[in-house]
């Protein structure tokens, strides 16, 4: 006989709806992939990557490893909810098989098991028997989840204990789903307790004791209270399942699919594909990106952080001013526990918003360049800092490098600044122009002083030659013994430019180079965690006053160890810092040039 009671309906209907939504969207996303990615997906399912994806799902979606790395309490909170609930479902299903008389259980049977089964034959402390063990286990797991719930409540009041300063401002659907999620487990606890107490058996160490206590107070009415609570429990689950696809908790099914996509080698494209849509869905709105955003804590702009931006994309409420108000420094995606590339999604959205307005670059000169083995491309910004150009010229001459100064008489922009506005098609004209120029020169190495150019040369130009930032090239020259150096002992703090560090993954060469000409001091936030100087070309809608706030904040971090010189590897950072720094700001090339004997 199949056990049934009317109260299982809200849960069952909610579950059916949720499963329908998950299957529907997963199939829409998978079928919506570009042809090449679909092929990757099909081969991926039958490869070893499938198992590494499963492993990652276990570690990230259930255990929340990255959250643990960030903060132990935060990690535990997420783990107790995700892994705890998962184990409750798993063990509940196994437990229900003991009492089951049919081959297949209806899905609600394990969830409301205690309502249907009041087993008096075995007591919970007889945990050497199978039913006794499960009673103990299920209570233990419920306690595990409840401990996470307590932490979640504490987090609202004391986010600092969880390594967070600010938490996300949630919208209505998120709040409804969150309240349901929070209530589900206490209501389950009380419903089970009342039932166990009323029947005098069937509970574990937690529910049985609590239930016995309840019966002492409520006597006969316990049975009716219990029934009402089972209704409440079922309703809460039902509401949670129905709101889930419209709330932050949609990240659960999205993230699982995202992990599979990534493991199968599927990546984001320059326009929206299913991959990007899954990424947008996978944002859990945990708010980790809020604290790392300099626009937030340094410039008091609190509505543009990745979490809010991604939400506005999901809700189709993107606003141009908000879209263009982002440093594109990459700090949020470095911190994101789900690994969402918020910057590339922002550029895709900017592209969609960029309008039809064309650019006219027909004025660009088309003289073929001279032939040279090495090209030096200073870049627009370097032309604003002539000291860097002077240093580079001096060093290259001394080292006897046969080079051509490609943009000596004026720079045709590399294209990245215009690309950051989303106007890919216009940027492509500049990319094409410079690319032809570079190829015509017949060079084998292209050296640039500007990390912005460096990044776009590497990512977009698809050049068949070596592309180097000058810090890499100078280090190579020094290692080859071509630059004689005097030892200097000035205390230097090094600033990682966004596009060289997070953007170009080059952290070591500048440090190695500086160590040869100066003494590096510690900077609290550096490397992957380094700050934007405030001069970013990624942001369009910001006042110069707010930019200054960011610069000042970055300077505080850089001068924490009282350096004598602030060294950077980017002309834009140099120019930005020079305006406000109380110490000397030098580019790496200048430091090397100064260290060369007369």
């Amino acid at each position, binding site marked *: 006989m199949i056990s049934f009671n009317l109260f299982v309906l809200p849960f069952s209907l909610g579950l059916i709806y949720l499963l329908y939504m998950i299957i529907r969207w997963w199939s829409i996303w998978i079928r919506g992939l570009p042809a090449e990615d679909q092929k990757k997906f099909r081969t991926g399912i039958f490869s070893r990557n499938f198992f590494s994806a499963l492993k990652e799902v276990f570690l990230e979606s259930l255990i929340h490893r990255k959250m643990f790395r960030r903060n132990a309490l935060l990690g535990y909170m997420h783990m107790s909810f995700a892994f705890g609930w998962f184990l409750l479902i798993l063990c509940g299903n196994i437990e229900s098989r003991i009492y089951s008389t049919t081959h297949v259980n209806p899905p609600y049977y394990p969830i409301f098991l205690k309502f249907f089964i009041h087993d008096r034959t075995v007591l919970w402390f007889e945990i050497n028997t199978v039913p006794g063990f499960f009673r103990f286990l299920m209570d233990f797991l419920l306690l595990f989840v409840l401990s996470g719930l307590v932490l979640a409540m504490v987090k609202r009041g004391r986010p600092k204990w969880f390594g967070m300063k600010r938490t996300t401002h949630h919208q209505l659907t998120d709040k409804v789903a969150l309240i349901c999620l929070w209530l589900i487990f206490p209501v389950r606890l009380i419903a089970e307790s009342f039932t166990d107490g009323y029947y005098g058996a069937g509970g574990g160490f937690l529910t049985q004791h609590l239930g016995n206590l309840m019966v002492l107070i409520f006597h006969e009415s316990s049975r009716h209270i219990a029934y009402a609570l089972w209704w409440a429990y079922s309703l809460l689950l039902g509401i949670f399942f129905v709101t889930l696809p419209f709330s932050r908790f949609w990240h659960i099914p999205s993230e699982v699919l995202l992990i599979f996509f990534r493991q199968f080698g599927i990546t984001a494209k320059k326009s929206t594909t299913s991959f990007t849509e899954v990424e947008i869905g996978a944002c859990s709105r945990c708010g980790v990106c809020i604290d790392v955003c300099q626009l937030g804590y340094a410039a008091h702009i609190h509505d543009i952080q990745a979490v809010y931006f991604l939400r506005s994309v999901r809700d189709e409420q993107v606003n*141009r*001013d908000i879209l*263009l108000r982002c440093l594109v420094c990459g700090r949020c995606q470095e911190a994101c526990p789900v690994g969402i590339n918020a910057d590339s999604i922002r550029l895709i959205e900017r592209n969609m918003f960029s*309008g*039809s*307005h*064309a*650019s*006219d*670059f027909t*004025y*660009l*000169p088309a003289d073929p360049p001279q032939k040279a083995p090495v090209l030096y491309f200073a870049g*627009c*910004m370097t*032309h*604003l800092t002539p000291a860097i150009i002077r240093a580079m010229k001096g060093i290259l001459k001394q080292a006897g490098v046969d080079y051509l100064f490609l943009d000596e*008489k*004026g*720079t*045709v*922009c590399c294209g990245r*600044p*215009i690309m950051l*506005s989303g106007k890919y098609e216009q940027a492509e004209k*500049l990319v094409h122009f410079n690319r032809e120029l570079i190829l015509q020169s017949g060079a084998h190495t292209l050296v640039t002083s500007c990390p912005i150019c460096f990044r776009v040369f590497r990512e977009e130009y698809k050049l068949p030659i070596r592309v180097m930032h000058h810090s890499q090239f100078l280090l190579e020259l020094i290692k080859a013994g071509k630059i004689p150096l005097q030892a200097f002992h000035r205390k230097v703090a090094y600033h990682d430019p966004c596009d060289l560090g997070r953007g170009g993954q080059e952290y070591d060469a500048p440090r190695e180079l500086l160590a040869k000409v100066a003494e590096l001091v510690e900077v609290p936030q550096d490397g992957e965690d380094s700050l934007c100087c405030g*001069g970013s*070309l990624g942001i*369009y*809608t*910001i*006042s*110069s*006053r707010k930019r200054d706030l960011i610069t000042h904040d970055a300077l505080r971090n850089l001068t924490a160890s009282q350096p004598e010189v602030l060294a950077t590897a980017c002309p*834009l950072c140099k*120019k*930005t810092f020079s305006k406000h720094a109380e110490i000397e700001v030098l580019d790496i090339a200048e430091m090397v040039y100064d260290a060369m004997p007369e």
Partner: protein
Amino acid sequence: MKEFGYKVHKERLIDYDKNDKRVLEHLKKHEPSVLTCIACGSCTATCSAGQFVDFNIRLVQTLLRRGEIEPLKKEVQKCMLCGKCILICPRGVNMRNLILAIQTAIDKLK
């Protein structure tokens, strides 16, 4: 002979009472720093595009105030958005958004 020296060419006439301020109004709202320009010309002196073509932010400002939409549209097309001018500007005019906002405003006119 009566009208010698006083003839008004309609196409050369800029009537400040009737000029099209829609783009300027959009900018006042979305990039108010446009009003702080003192026309010093630093941006033009440093301009990357200005090395190759006659491109002048001061002219952009003038066209904007005169409401000459067509020439304005042509003028801003020359910008490469490299951002040197922002670093040079003594008045904190946010030139890159100025260009983008002009383009957006002109798009909206259609």
